[in-house]
């Protein structure tokens, strides 16, 4: 270790800088590095730590200096010769923070074989990585660190928790694959979480996942992929990309129960052209079996279907943490009769029946939220029925006048007539749909399950 302390110090005006530490033991490691092209020309470390953290920092600096950025991102923690893995991890984390920082300043020479795989830490993206690698691509794992909410009841259930990032990294490193994680928390808050909170505050039921995929996450992934010299990003979505007349469309995955095409419905065609979806033909049980056979720890992880930033918790406390005030108000019938009281209107959604706390002769459902008056309006099921839905921020293929529409992530598609109106689209459904929630994404499919349009359900 002594000789390697010679790389202690800082690189002046670094291209990448990363810091990691543990409050528990007080250890801290900082890397600074300078790039020349895709090569780490110089790296220096600072450390205040135990022998393992110090030894790991020194060893990493020695191993990565003079090598490529990609090779540095592929060194497994377990390859380090230190007595304590936990302490070595501090140095490993600091290096990865520096590599992520350097990613913002790098432009690798494009390489057609290279493919970026978006890794959440879950089983689907892990198998996407395995499949892309088996298909002959030179794969690189990339994880976006989107949200850490230490007040959430189960912060580790957020798909981008620190544990999930480490799991994604370990999945890559077990295959000798480089891994990068990008801290995008601030941008995510601005682009996804804040609009979500504003939507609820105005009485809508926004869909943050479709917003995130369309306006934030995939953009960032494709942009980062370009920096790493790759034109294509693979994700673990259960959906397919089809091409028609040179344009890319998203289409239903082969596993109808697991289909995630709805989640990608709002993504631009240009962006879809940069996507590869290796699980489009897969069924979830097969993916789990593949993960088991590959010995992946993720094989047994529970499904994560919640909104990631809720962190396993309920919506109402999240909104409160986000500063949306919760005021008690009336629960009313359509005719204005007061049926009861609620603790806060915002966490209700149209179609909801559970947790209303109102006794009535017939089953009552939430019909709508009157945000201006802080009132939740209930009605019998038949009164929730709607045959006409207006979409804003909508687009649909030219000449399309019939489609199948999904109005929520987990609802079946309904046949509908499509017509254009001022700045939007009007859907006249063939059969009534109950509990339509303004703010949710509507995805329009054709007969073949291809997404041909989308919009946001207007109020």
């Amino acid at each position, binding site marked *: *270790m*002594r000789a390697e*302390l010679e790389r*202690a*110090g*800082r690189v002046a005006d670094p291209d990448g800088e990363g*810091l990691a530490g543990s409050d*528990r*033991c*007080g*250890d*801290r*490691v*900082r890397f600074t590095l300078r790039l020349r092209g895709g090569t780490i020309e110089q790296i*220096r*470390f*600072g*450390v*205040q*730590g*135990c*022998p*393992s953290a*110090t*030894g790991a920092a020194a060893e990493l600096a020695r191993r990565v200096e003079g090598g490529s950025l990609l090779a540095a991102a592929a060194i497994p923690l377990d390859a380090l010769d230190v*007595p*304590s893995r*936990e*302490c070595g991890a501090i140095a490993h984390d600091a290096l990865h923070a520096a590599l992520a920082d350097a990613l913002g300043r790098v432009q690798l020479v494009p390489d057609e074989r290279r493919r970026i795989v978006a890794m959440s830490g879950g089983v689907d993206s892990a198998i996407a990585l395995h499949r892309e690698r088996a298909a002959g691509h030179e794969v690189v794992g990339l994880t976006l660190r989107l949200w850490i909410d230490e007040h959430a009841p189960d912060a580790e259930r957020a798909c981008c928790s620190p544990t999930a990032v480490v799991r994604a990294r370990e999945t890559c490193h077990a295959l000798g694959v480089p891994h990068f994680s990008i801290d995008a928390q601030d941008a995510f808050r601005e682009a996804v979480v804040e609009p979500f909170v504003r939507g609820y505050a105005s009485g809508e039921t926004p869909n943050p996942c479709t917003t995130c995929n369309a306006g934030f996450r995939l953009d960032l992934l494709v942009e980062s992929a370009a920096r790493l010299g790759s034109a294509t990003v693979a994700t673990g979505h259960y959906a397919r990309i089809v091409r028609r007349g040179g344009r890319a469309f998203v289409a239903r995955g082969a596993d109808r129960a697991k289909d995630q095409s709805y989640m990608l419905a709002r993504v631009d065609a240009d962006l879809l052209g940069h996507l590869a979806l290796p699980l489009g033909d897969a069924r979830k049980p097969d993916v789990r079996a593949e993960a088991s056979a590959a010995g992946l720890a993720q094989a047994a992880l529970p499904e994560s279907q919640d909104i990631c930033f809720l962190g396993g918790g309920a919506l109402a406390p999240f909104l409160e943490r986000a500063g949306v005030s919760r005021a008690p108000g009336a629960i009313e019938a359509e005719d204005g009769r007061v049926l009861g009281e609620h603790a806060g209107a915002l966490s209700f959604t149209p179609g909801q029946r559970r947790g209303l706390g109102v006794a009535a002769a017939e089953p009552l459902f939430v019909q709508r939220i009157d945000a201006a008056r802080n009132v939740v309006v209930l009605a019998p099921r038949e009164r929730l029925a709607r045959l006409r839905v207006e979409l804003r921020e909508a687009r649909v293929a030219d000449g399309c006048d019939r489609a199948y529409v999904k109005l929520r992530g987990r609802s079946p598609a309904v046949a509908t007539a499509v017509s254009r109106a001022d700045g939007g689209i009007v859907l006249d459904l063939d059969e009534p749909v109950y509990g339509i929630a303004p703010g949710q994404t509507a995805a329009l499919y054709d007969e073949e399950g291809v997404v041909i349009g989308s919009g946001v359900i207007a109020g």
Partner: protein
Amino acid sequence: MERIYCDHAATTPLSDVAWAAMEPFLREQFGNASEPHWAGREARAGLDRARAVAADALGVAPAEVIFTGGASEADNLAVLGRLTAGPGRIVASPFEHPAVWLQLESLAERGYEVVFLQSGPDGRVPAAEFDRHVRSGDLLCCCIWANNITGVIQPVSEVAAICAERGVPLHLDAVQACACVPVDVGILPGAVTAAAAAHKLGGPKGVGLLCGRGLDSLDAVIHGGPHERGLRPGTENVAGASGFAAALAHAQAGEARAPRRRGIRDAYEAAVAGSLERVRVVGAGVERLPGHSLLVIDDVRGATLVSLLDEQGIAAAANSACASASAKPSHVLLALGLSEAEARSALRLSFGELNDESQLPRIVSAVVDAATALRAAAAAA
């Protein structure tokens, strides 16, 4: 590269006198000392001799010595053997060895009132602190004679007088003290017990003793036969006891060696403190074991310094193991009033039989160079 051992407080090699005393009992006189036949009688004679030698070295009667399987066992026996009266109050110094400390922490969780006394930054608990807290009716008072990390010697005679006056049994962990300062247990008043370990002073590992008049009022906590007054049953380790007794007598007769150790220690501390800024000597102003040195070197992780010294062939100690479940520094260092960061910056060297002045330049430059390099690395963190 010549290897240098500066960790005598951790353990020591078996001395010639100890080996000579042990050897006959390992193969020739192998008997079980509890048997009445010739083989047993030979062993019994050896054991009696060892007990007499050890008792003489510590100023107690042979009947006031029992041999144990190490000092941790003796410490536990001395504490647990006082508890048959049921939950009560125990007073202890904040510098107890884990063999006492962890036992007391466990008792505190089980309803005993355990009072840990306060210390000043010099590592010595004033006798007045015992005077203030020890009460008649207490089950036990514990005071380590000299702490294993700091080497600071506690005011044992005054503490014994206070406890004797109030009728409170006193247990002294004399493990480190026995190796390099006079330990006269017999002269102390009251129901005193003292623990010692062979391997810290040139004896074999796995042998300890508990001694003192306090044995009379101690209850058995392990059962299995009449050996060692029924307090430590099991076939006697005659070779171990013989080696221990010889080494103990040698150590206790070795006052002449103390100035040499002190000379090496003081020269080392002066040289390091003269070359590095922000270094403190713990216990500089009070009586310490002559070979012990505990330095707090700011912004230098002790454990990492120790590993760099190890690469230079120098064995030292940091007493601040991390990667343990708690990652908390030693309670002893915190009791000195050090912050957690300072406690992680401690370096202990303990000089002894294997050291001489000619090693000093290498030791000093290794410590200074490594600390300087680590400070540079820390500044960049």
